């Protein structure tokens, strides 16, 4: 087994552990932190079903962002939907036989790569062109966009410019998943692409990419507006009811 194969195998195992472990830890932390008061941004749904719909619209359509700013919405939505298609398309490297819906998404996935990079380009341009966005941008904001653009363009490069040994790549990943190492093709574009993806996985749980799990835990979006009908009490606030604290003086 070549040094390269072992190195990338180690990198991907480590990245997966950090990605999954980090996300689980973060999600646990969000779930365990109480929301002591009812703070949905109103008008808010009065039923749980309504809240599920509101959240679905936020996640699938970026409803609030649409109200807010059409340009960010356009670029941001384009990028995320394309990213989703690209991820779905990539599942064929991890499944044998390939799931039928993954196969069905293949044709869209190809163009999604371009759309994704275009969306990212639009978002990045805003960071230079709009003075307010320029003011709030940190180096990491630029670098994350650069990282995603790097992943996108190196991927597109392998597909449209310099084909790589796709069968070899698939064997490598299927091997990783069964702890049975297979050689990794040593094509520079592929190595760059994979390194950047591993880096993305590593920074995911320690960066603003936490917006993805975060949105589901946002109390202003996931609470029902039923404060008059139901008493909502955080565990840490129960003591006030019982104690002498039931007097105002």
């Amino acid at each position, binding site marked *: 087994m070549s040094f390269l194969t072992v190195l990338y195998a180690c990198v991907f195992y480590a990245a997966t552990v950090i990605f999954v472990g980090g996300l689980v830890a973060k999600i646990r932390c969000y779930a365990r932190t109480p929301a002591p008061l009812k703070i949905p941004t109103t008008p808010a749904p009065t039923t749980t079903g309504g809240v599920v719909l509101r959240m679905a619209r936020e996640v699938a359509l970026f409803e609030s962002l649409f109200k807010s700013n059409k340009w960010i919405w356009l670029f941001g939505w384009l990028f995320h939907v394309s990213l989703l298609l690209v991820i779905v398309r990539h599942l064929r490297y991890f499944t044998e036989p390939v799931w039928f819906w993954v196969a069905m998404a293949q044709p869209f996935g190809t163009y999604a790569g371009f759309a994704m990079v275009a969306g990212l380009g639009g978002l990045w341009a805003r960071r230079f062109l709009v003075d307010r966005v320029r003011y709030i941008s940190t180096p990491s904001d630029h670098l994350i966009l650069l990282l995603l653009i790097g992943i996108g363009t190196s991927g597109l490069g392998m597909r449209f410019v310099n084909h790589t040994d796709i069968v070899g790549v698939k064997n490598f990943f299927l091997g990783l998943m069964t702890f049975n190492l297979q050689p990794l093709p040593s094509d520079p574009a592929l190595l760059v692409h994979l390194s950047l993806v591993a880096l993305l996985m590593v920074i995911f749980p320690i960066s603003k990419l936490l917006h993805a799990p*975060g949105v589901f835990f946002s109390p202003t979006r996931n609470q029902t507006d039923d*404060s008059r009908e139901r008493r909502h009490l955080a565990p840490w606030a129960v003591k006030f009811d019982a104690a002498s604290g039931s007097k105002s003086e």
Partner: protein
Amino acid sequence: MAAPQFEVPKLTGNIEVPAVKEGAAAHIKSFPANAGIQEIIGFPGGSEPGELIDGWHDKAIAKMGDLLGRYRSLRVFMDACVHCGACTDKCHYFIGTGDPKNMPVARQELMRSVYRRHFTFAGKYFPSLVGAKDLTKELVEDWYKYYYQCSECRRCSVFCPYGIDTAEVTMAGREILDTIGYGQKYTNEIMGKLHKIGNNLGLPGPALQDTLEGLEEDILDATGVAVKLPLDVKGAEVLLITPSADFFAEPHVESLMGYGKVFHASGTSWTLSSKASEAGNFGMFIGSYENTRRAAMRIREAALELGVKRIVVGECGHAWRVAYSFWNTLIGVGAGGTDPFSIELQKQLDPRYPAPQHICEFTNDLIKQGKLKFDKSLNDHRVVTFHDSCNVARGSRMGDIPGGQFIIPREVIKAVVNNYYDMAEETIGESTFCCGGGGGILTDDLLEIRVKGALPRMEALNNVVQDHKVNFLALICAICKAQFNKVVPFYGFDMSMVGGVHQLVSTAILLEKEEE
């Protein structure tokens, strides 16, 4: 009106997003509280107002850790922001000043930079990469200035893709500042009066009794009908909790008289309480669960002592948010409680009515049932528009359906006036612009930010004044009333155009004269 020490923005007919002007509002700072004020509400104070206590840095970080563990909102909001910029042009204080630290995301960033430094891996090891910062004295100064240039109006949270509510961050920031001795004089002094005397004005029971008697005489003189404003009546059906400004400030008293007439005309037995003579609750402004609860406890106690069946809340924005959204949690006013604390009160309340109920819900129900008679033409000298108060619009509800808080006050208004026009769509409803004086900003030492923060509302108002000759700005918030009263003259409007929804009701309602 004295000549202002600052440039009042010009009305252009459009709400324009200003260019970023760093430091444009950096000189605007409210007076800090002294140690005496701080201690009354359970916080330490330094040797001078605004002097930090010993060991402030570590205490601030420890408090931040405490709040991160107790509030999911703060926890998630600190992590989730992607710096997309969608909120950057949504804050009235940014629109009015151009100071980038008044952009919601930048206001959050004052805290997020410290959060990153102390509570995240990236910020501990790569601070400059992710904009992490140590909490220095200069940064504490910025916290104090810009957390008191936020009215906690939640407009930004409507437009953020994750619902990040800068008000939550501001509240946390203020609570941390209070913990290290850096409180605000205005808010904390009022908080103390509320704890000690029972209302924000420090008006004791006997004085309140006198005031109410005076107002009863005024109503009798004006209408020939003996409308009562009862105080501390045991066994009354309704307890009215209203902002104390309603007892003496103009135009607030006009609405109080309106409530009195509605109760009178519908034959509802009701009472005010000298113990709970304040709907306002500035505890929310400083993010203090303990202070908010302690202040609200007076209302629970008054309700239990007086044995009332219903609790109705007068015209006050943040008070209605606290009442509608928090009272059930804090003091058990509501329904659905399963614990002894809440059951004790809830078994006394009449389950046929929501608890608490907004005065507009109360009046609107009576209108729907045909129990009130009006002569709308008595309001014909008025052309009315309605300002949705931020806390009502984005932090509460009225009625049974989401958005009822926009419908019900307008229904009440339309039942009593003939001439009504809404302001532009994007400045009302859930997108309403704050009056500029909410959330602990309503103090003369912040006049500049109050005037500048009112700019988007003044633009929208000016447009309906030009197009429809609107001459009455109807409000359901004591702070909005006081703020607009002070601020509209800076934009060339007359103070007399500011008033309450129940002031309009008061003008048009027909009371039956008792037969002699």
